[in-house]
């Protein structure tokens, strides 16, 4: 039994933490959030150079990591600093799908992603799909040597920056069927593809994407026809490890900010943290934080096991519950200051809470856990 990070991962963590604490300050980050692009190319390039993207891919994919604990190590640090750059979308989801399904020609794109030169977006969720991964109503039909894609995709994160969108579309089966879903590599500037972009509550940007008679060559298909669901489930499992770790890192930040504030802010002639009513609640946060760390460890450690989905459902459910507690209690114990946009905690709390809305909230993962446990 050994719960320490390997030497390589420890180095990655140290490097990333040092870089982010020096470069990714609250002021810098708030300026990035307010910018038109919603993320910083400069930061993206520097982090790619530090190997942060490469750490999310295996050696055979051109990276030097790619395991559950590589993902959790990186995303814990991104969460701690409240990073809004789209590592999840470009690397884990987009890059992950191309690495898993792509042919030799398509694999070249993974190299570009690792180098920091290409952004990707997963255009999968639809206006009515909520968190249901198999609900796809967008259609793809072969027309001669081309494929015609029709449909709407909802809250496609990083769509505007992406060179390619990975679009899921049905070539068979009903709207909830696991079979019949195919994935396509669609250039962002394809004719018939339109975007309505907008900023998001916790930073970064997304878009509503409409595909109206979008034509791509059959070579744009990723993997075989109609069997995209399994690959999707695989990258979403990895994304869930990343999201859990990111939220946990952010929870650590929120707790640390709260500790500092409780011991500095004086009311009634003493630091407010010396009031037992607050001290006990702060202790509860620390206890829940240990739970959260263990849940992430469980999820990351089971990414390649048969028990993967149940472990991930458990982790996301626990993180959703403890995350809400930490975010709300951190704000409450700070008081008004935490309600202001420019204070670090506001953004961190938003990152934690809004994690709930990607790939399932506490209820969704609870139901999944119950279903998988009964099976």
């Amino acid at each position, binding site marked *: 039994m050994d719960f320490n990070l390997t030497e390589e991962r420890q180095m990655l963590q140290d490097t990333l933490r040092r870089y982010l604490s020096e470069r990714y300050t609250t002021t810098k980050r708030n300026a990035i959030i307010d910018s038109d692009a919603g993320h910083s190319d400069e930061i993206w390039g520097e982090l790619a150079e530090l190997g942060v993207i490469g750490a999310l891919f295996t050696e055979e994919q051109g990276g030097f990591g790619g395991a559950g604990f590589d993902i959790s190590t990186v995303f814990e640090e991104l969460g701690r600093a409240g990073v809004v750059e789209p590592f999840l979308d470009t690397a884990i989801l987009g890059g992950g799908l191309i690495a898993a399904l792509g042919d030799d020609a398509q694999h070249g794109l993974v190299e570009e992603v690792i180098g920091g030169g290409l952004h990707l977006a997963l255009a999968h969720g639809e206006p009515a799909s909520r968190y249901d991964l198999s609900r796809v109503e967008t259609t793809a039909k072969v027309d001669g040597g081309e494929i015609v894609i029709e449909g709407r995709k909802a*809250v496609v994160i990083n769509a505007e920056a992406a060179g390619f969108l990975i679009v899921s579309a049905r070539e068979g089966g009903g709207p909830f069927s696991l079979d019949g879903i195919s994935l396509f590599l669609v250039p962002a500037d394809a004719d018939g593809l339109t975007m309505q972009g907008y900023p998001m509550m916790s930073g970064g940007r997304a878009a509503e994407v409409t595909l109206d008679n979008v034509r791509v060559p059959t070579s744009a298909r990723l993997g075989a026809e109609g069997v995209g669901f399994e690959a999707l489930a695989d990258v979403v499992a990895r994304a869930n490890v990343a999201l859990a770790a990111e939220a946990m890192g952010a929870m650590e930040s929120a707790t640390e900010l709260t500790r500092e504030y409780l011991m500095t802010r004086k009311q009634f002639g003493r630091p407010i943290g010396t009031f037992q009513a607050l001290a006990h609640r702060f202790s509860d946060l620390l206890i829940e934080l240990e739970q959260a760390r263990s849940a992430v460890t469980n999820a990351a450690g089971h990414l390649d096991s048969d028990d993967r989905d149940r472990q991930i459902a458990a982790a996301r459910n626990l993180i959703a519950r403890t995350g809400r507690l930490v975010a709300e209690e951190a704000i409450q114990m700070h008081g008004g200051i935490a309600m202001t946009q420019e204070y670090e905690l506001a953004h961190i*709390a938003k990152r934690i809470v809004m994690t709930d809305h990607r790939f399932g909230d506490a209820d969704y993962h609870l139901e999944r856990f119950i279903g998988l446990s009964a099976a």
Partner: protein
Amino acid sequence: MDLSYTKEEQAFREEVRTFLEEKLPKSMSDKVRRGEHIGKEGHELWHSILNEQGWLSFNWPKEFGGAEWNAVQRHIFEDQCAAAYAPRIVPFGLSMLAPVLQKFGSKEQQDHYLPRILDGTDWWCQGYSEPGAGSDLASLKTRAVREGDHYVVNGQKTWTTLGQYADWIFCLVRTDPDAKQQEGISFLLIDMNTPGIEVRPIVLLDGTPEVNEVFFDNVRVPVENLVGEENKGWTYAKYLLTHERTGIAGVGFSRAGLDAVKRVARQESANGRPLIENPHFAARLAQVEIDLMAMSTTNLRIISQAAAGAAPGVESSMLKVKGTIIRQEINDLARRAVGPYAMPFASEAVEGDNDPVGPEYAGPVAAQYFNNRKLSIFGGSNEIQRGIIAKVKMGG
């Protein structure tokens, strides 16, 4: 024991309902329902509509031209307003300053300021909190020094809600730095156009510019703007806190919020079924509704005691704590109900610059969830309220 309203109270409720149906502009209630801000003009318009009916002064005594409703009537009015998605009445002049002037102000102050509050001439804001004086309000440091027939004010106030619209601010200032904390504080009325005042907006975490910092740099205030006696300001401020707190439970807001969540949950689907039939979501919804039903009766029990003449005590604190917990839980359910469409940041849609993203009801829910974290912080945080309850009830 009779849980229903009397005939007179029922008739009053009908009267209020009819009034709201006829006079509340649809464009305004639509905005409130969608969680949009109605701006200064919107608030002023709603105030003038109420004033025309003689209802803006509903909590003022008759001798000051008020409607002087009892606690049950006030509750019915507030309840019906929330259900109809009427804008909230901006309380600073009407229900915070006015009662203090009516009780402690001079005849001249009453004659001058009260009519201007009713007809909308003056928009008031509240100058209590300071960066170093939040929960511990009595430690406030903003200084007022008497120089001839003026006070010279220096210092800073913060969390000044809608101060950007204000013509006047009522302030707690320190006039005797040597006295015991609570005893050296005075209650001053300050014209926001006086030289030396600067208002800086604070952007809240949901992006709204709702509160401000107000800086005072050698601001000269005529001595006749002192309310009551010098160094007695704390007594007046405390009078305010115990005066009128029937709305503190926010029952009407919670009920309207719960209805909204149910409406959304009927339209959203999870696993191919309406979300409202999802057992986990339905359980959470039911739980908060059960809590709300009980709190609503607690609220009425306390209101009917108050209507019979009992002074509200720690019950106000209890209602504030429970009421905010319930409202915040409803905000959380609303956020969860809309799924991924909680993620778009709606401010642009709210301002009408862009087409709405996703279903119309999804736009403001995440912002409201974050914004309403303030409910358990302002007006005496829930921790302060719990302290008050314990202090009074434990007899220590």
